[in-house]
Structures are given as structure tokens and as C-alpha cells.
């Protein structure tokens, strides 16, 4: 059962899985997050469907990134941050006392807003994650596979030993995606992955997302509504830390059920 925040009208459950959704891989139950006394996320409940792209949209400072970073416990590093509620990943509570955040991050990968390759070779960037986690298989094959899936292999196959910092911004971001793919994660979290890229590189990343969702569950935070409309299957609209609406992207953008969603997606937002 989905817990609903008391502030909401009881008849509507914005976080319940939309019709036609597959089974949920990630279930957020009544999640609230505080920075000190400041509540960043307020009673959010949400079911992220498997092998689909879920977009989280909303105005700056609405808590999208905070919410995303809860899913792989990257918020653990922020002092003074407190969580309440539950996030279930494959029916295990991510915040239960026995759960090691390192293990969570093995299975739930992340791509950041600005491309952040390691100052190492392209090859080492991809293999580092598997290597430190005891990967024993064929390294060359894993690197090639990961780079191919990230649509970067053809551009870099002749210079795998060159520094990753010599790549363009868009290539660096695809390398970061390849690096996340090499861990063979179940979910990939993307925090505005194209916001620092030019339109051409952005288009490449978006094309890549269509390919990737066949194999992975993707949760993408974006402030670009056209992007959310183009790439995602489901869209969650967040405002002031509250989940306003969650549904199939087409429905959220064309027939929003809530007035505030409509104002936002049609650009009438204050």
C-alpha cells in the first residue's frame, strides 16, 4: 500500500504506479528529507517501473537531485541530512541498518550533471569500478562492451590508453555512462546528464537513453521539459519537495490532472 502524506486529498495517490506500468524496481514510501531544520523532500511516495525511463522534473531547488541521490545513498556524505520513510529496492529497504551503502552503489549507478571522468586513461576509467570490486573476467571485453553500449567505442577504440580529459564534453559524458554500465547496475540514476552539453551531444545522449532502457532502469532528473517529454516513459513532477503528479509522460504533459502541473509544463509557472 502506498502511504499518502496527510496534506493531500485522500482520494488521490500521486505515487501509485501508473496504469500499464511494469513491476516496480524501486518503491519510495512516504519519504521526507531534512537538511538540518529545512525540509527538502516532503512525504514523497513513488514507484519506479523496471526497464523504463522515469523523469523527475520540477523547478530549481524543488528537491529533484536530493530525491535522486537518496536512491544510491549519495546523500550519506552530506552532513546534517536526515531521512524518514522508506526506499525499497527489489523489496529491500535501502536504509535498513544491515545495508552497506557501498553495495547499494554497486547495483545502482549514477551519472552526474557535469562530466567527471577520472584523470586517467579511457580504458582505466571504465575498468576501475569493476577492478576495485574484484572483477575477474576479461577486462578488454568488458571495456569494449561498455563503451559500445555507451555509443562511444568507434570514436575511442584507437586511443583507449589516452587520457579521458582529451575527449570532448559530450564524449566525456558518454564515457561516464560507459563507466556506470561497466558495473552492470540494475538502475542508472542520471542527474541532469545533458545540461552542460551542446544540443548535438545532448541529442546523442538522448538517443543513447532509448537503447539503454532495453537493459536498464533509468531515472533521470532534468530541468529541460522538452527533454523529459522526449525521452521518458513516466514523469514525476516535484515542487517544493512535494510530489505533485506522477504518471505516464504523455498524460502528464498533455492531460495533467493537477493544475500546478499544467502551469509548469505549459510554461505558465510563476
Amino acid at each position, binding site marked *: 500500500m502506498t502511504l499518502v502524506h496527510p496534506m493531500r486529498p485522500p482520494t488521490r495517490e500521486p505515487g501509485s504506479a501508473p496504469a500499464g506500468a511494469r513491476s516496480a524496481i524501486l518503491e519510495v514510501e512516504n519519504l521526507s528529507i531534512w537538511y538540518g531544520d529545512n525540509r527538502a523532500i516532503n512525504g514523497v511516495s513513488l514507484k519506479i517501473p523496471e526497464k523504463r525511463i522515469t523523469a523527475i522534473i520540477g523547478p530549481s531547488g524543488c528537491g529533484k537531485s536530493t530525491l535522486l541521490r537518496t536512491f*544510491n545513498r*549519495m546523500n550519506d*556524505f552530506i*552532513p546534517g541530512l536526515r531521512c524518514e520513510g522508506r526506499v525499497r529496492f527489489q523489496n529491500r529497504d535501502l536504509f535498513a541498518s544491515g545495508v552497506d551503502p*557501498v*553495495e547499494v*552503489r*554497486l547495483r545502482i*549507478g*549514477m551519472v*552526474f550533471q*557535469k562530466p*567527471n*571522468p*577520472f*584523470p586517467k586513461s579511457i580504458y582505466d576509467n571504465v575498468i*576501475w*569500478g569493476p577492478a*576495485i*570490486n574484484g572483477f575477474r573476467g576479461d577486462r578488454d571485453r568488458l571495456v569494449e562492451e561498455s563503451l559500445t553500449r555507451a555509443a562511444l567505442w568507434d570514436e575511442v577504440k584507437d586511443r583507449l590508453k589516452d*587520457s579521458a*580529459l*582529451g575527449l570532448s564534453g559530450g564524449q566525456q559524458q558518454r564515457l*561516464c555512462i560507459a*563507466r*556506470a554500465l561497466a*558495473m552492470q547496475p540494475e538502475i542508472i540514476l542520471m542527474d541532469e546528464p545533458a545540461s552542460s552539453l551542446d544540443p548535438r551531444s545532448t541529442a546523442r545522449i538522448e538517443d543513447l537513453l532509448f537503447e539503454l532502457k532495453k537493459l536498464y532502469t533509468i531515472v533521470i532528473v532534468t530541468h529541460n521539459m522538452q527533454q523529459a517529454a522526449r525521452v521518458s516513459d513516466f514523469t514525476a513532477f516535484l515542487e517544493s519537495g512535494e510530489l505533485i503528479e506522477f504518471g505516464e509522460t504523455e498524460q502528464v504533459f498533455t492531460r495533467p490532472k493537477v493544475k500546478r502541473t499544467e502551469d509548469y509544463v505549459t510554461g505558465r509557472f510563476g
Partner: protein
Amino acid sequence: MTSWVETVSLTLPRRRRAARVFALACRLITWSGVVLLGVLLVHVSREGFQWLDWDFLTSFPSRFAERAGIKSALMGTLWLIGGTGAVSIPLGVAASIYLEEYARPGRIKSIIEINIANLAGVPSIVYGILGLALFVRGMALGRSVAAGALTMSLLILPVIVITSREAIRAVPGSIRQAAFALGATRWQVTRDHVLPAALPGILTGVILAMSRAIGETAPLIMIGALTYVAFLPRGPADSFTALPIQIFNWASRQQAEFHGLAAAGIIILLVVLFVMNGVAVYIRNRSQRKPQ
């Protein structure tokens, strides 16, 4: 109504002049440092150059100025620096890793930080007294290389910790985040990403701190390093002398010849310092050229 912008042309020459005066003052101040160093070098060279030869480097000190050399002091300094580095680098770098990567913000961390900053400002003679009480007497190391190296380590530890912390802090947080997001433990992140990226900065700080240790005299006199040593230290338990002590010893003699020897010793000391600073600059430049 006239625009206020038209009055700008009245004040502009004056502002220009002020800018020129300031630029000139900055230039003078910068060059005065270079000139002072030049005067020092010329003065020292004029007095000491005639004494500088191979014999000077390979002879032990002597009562006779013509036969006196700096061998034991030079070797003593190398022993001292080696020992100081062996103790202070691992401790200093480890402490800075702990403070930057592991310690949680809070009272204890602030207390440690304030104390390290204060220690960096403590006069070296105080470290000498501490070394005398703690190492020479307390640990019964005597007037040995080990006692000297430990005392010097105390002296430069705060400097190493402070510079290493800055180097570690300069590593972008995005690199740490990327590594953590791949399921790395904090140690793996530190070992494979933070330390390699911070290494040039750490090395520069370490070399500058060691340069300071080379020139220090007061703490060595305090712990009783010898002024006349006609043998080389064979190990950390042997007694020793060092370049600044030998120079001090020669400079305080009556005879003019020994003043020349002191000047020659200063040249050797400066050469060692320039070489170490040169290494620091080389390391820094090399790391900047490489895409880090």
C-alpha cells in the same frame, strides 16, 4: 541636464596616475627581495669562493683553516634530512588524509586544526627544548641523528599537514563522487584518486618543509648536536653535526680564515636549498603540464 558620465574625463587622469604609482610601488617591492638575495650571494661568494674546492667537501673540520672541510657537516645534514623525511612525511600525510577525508566536522576536529595551526607558529627553539626533554633525555637517544631527526620532524610536521591538506582539498569533489558512485570504499577512493591527484601539491609542501629543516640551527644546538665532529655517522644512533651548526661554529671564531670557511659553508647550504626548491618547482610544473 548633462550626464554624470561627462565629468569622468576630469577625474580620469588622476585615477590613471594613482594606478601607475601603485604599479611602480609593487614593482619596487618585488625587486627589493631579488636585490637583497643578490647582495647576499655576492657578499658570500666574495668571501667564501676561494675556499670552495673539492678538498673542502671531502675534509673533516680542523683547527687549521687550510685543512678544514665540511664533509661531516654535509653528511650529517643528509642523515638528518633523511631521518626527518622518513618520520615526518608518513605521519604528516596520514594526518592530513585523516583530517580531510575521514574526520567528521565537530569539536574535536576544530581543536586539532587550531592546535596544528598554532604549532606551525611555535619558535623552533621551543621544539629544541621539547626534543631535549623528550628524545635526548626521556627516550635516552642522546645527542644522536635519531634525536635530531625526531626533533626536526616535530618542527615541520605542522607545515606538512597544512600544505598536504590544501593539496587534498584542491582535488575536485566530483572525482570523489564519481568514485563513490561506482561502489568504492573511502580508502579505495583516497588511494586511487585523491592521493594521486594531490601528490604534486603534497610533494611541493614536503620539500619546502624539508628545506626549512635544513636551515634550522636553534633546535639542533638545543639538543646538543656537536660542533666538532671528525667522523661520519654510521647510523641513527651516532652523534652528528649539521651544516648550519658548522657555519655558526666557524663564524664565531676570531680568525678571518674561518669566516671565509663559514661563507663557503653558506654557499654549500644555499646550493642544497636551491636544489631542493628546484625539485619542488620541477614537480609542480610537470604535474601542471600533464592533463590532470
